[in-house]
């Protein structure tokens, strides 16, 4: 999982994922490799644009539990990472943790997750995301799929700034490529891109 991109942090066995989230306040790029359908390793680079502040982590992504129902799937993931964060005044050895729950069928989708970056002096960044969406139409497997998603996000940076925003997204995916475009009600344009190789 990432601070921006909201999709499965683990894919099928043997796949490599490239994910990037771009917004005026935060960018997050992740590469991950899925050793199993329940275990992946990732590297992350998080940056605050125009401020020369960034953080880099290596992580282990775990699928704690999956429910495969008839036409339905629900997942519980966790991410545990370590690296360096320079989001504050100084560079610190930091940890990255997260928990994500999602559930979807072919028509509806719900996701809730919390992620944080912390070190011995405190928490640099804490983010909570809740998403809900629906598919306006259902396409065959090899077609172009689209979703309309509404995201609520709350970001607390360095215990100083808490920013909440509501963003409607359009999600498109075709085969192994996923693209999202949204603009929050505060005017921030956000882009998500995921490729599975």
């Amino acid at each position, binding site marked *: 999982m990432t601070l921006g991109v909201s999709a499965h942090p683990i894919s099928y066995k043997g796949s490599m994922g490239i994910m990037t989230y771009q917004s005026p306040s935060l960018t997050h790029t992740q590469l991950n490799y899925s050793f199993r359908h329940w275990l992946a390793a990732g590297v992350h680079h998080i940056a605050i644009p125009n401020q020369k502040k960034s953080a880099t982590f290596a992580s282990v992504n775990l699928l704690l539990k999956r429910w495969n129902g008839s036409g339905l799937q629900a997942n519980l993931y966790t991410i545990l990472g370590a690296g360096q964060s320079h989001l504050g005044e100084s560079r610190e050895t930091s940890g990255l943790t997260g928990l994500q729950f999602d559930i979807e069928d072919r028509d509806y989708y719900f996701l809730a997750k919390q992620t944080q970056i912390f070190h011995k002096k405190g928490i640099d960044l804490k983010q909570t995301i809740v998403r809900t969406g629906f598919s306006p139409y259902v396409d065959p*497997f090899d077609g172009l799929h689209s979703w309309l998603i509404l995201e609520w996000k709350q970001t607390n940076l360095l215990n100083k700034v808490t920013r909440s925003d509501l963003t409607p997204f359009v999600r498109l995916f075709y085969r192994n490529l996923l693209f999202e475009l949204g603009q929050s009600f505060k005017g921030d344009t956000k882009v998500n891109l995921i490729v599975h190789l």
Partner: protein
Amino acid sequence: MEIKIMNKKILSLITAFAFFQTFSQTAFAKMPNKKSINHKSQHSAKNQKNLRGKVTIKVNGMVCSFCAQGIKKNFAQYKSVKSTKVNLDKMQVTINLKPGATLSEKEIAKVIVDAGFSYKGVKK
């Protein structure tokens, strides 16, 4: 301030839990039993039978084509497989094996499980 933040957290957790409960009462009524959804060890295909020709497999959990790409990709690695077709509406995967080629049900189940889904058997 801390109490307000805590209340917001509790409220969001309760909302998520309530949503999940509501969803699960309708959708999960058809859930397979606990043994068969153990994602770490699911090879319910005890049958070592080798299959030929066109094989249709029932799969649970396939709701998203982006996530199910692994099924096609992983079956393509088998020389015996000519083509793979995924049908999300019918929750089925159909593989066409090359003339004279076989693939065991165990291997088929492994591909489905490695892709992150639940293998529910071969459709007769």
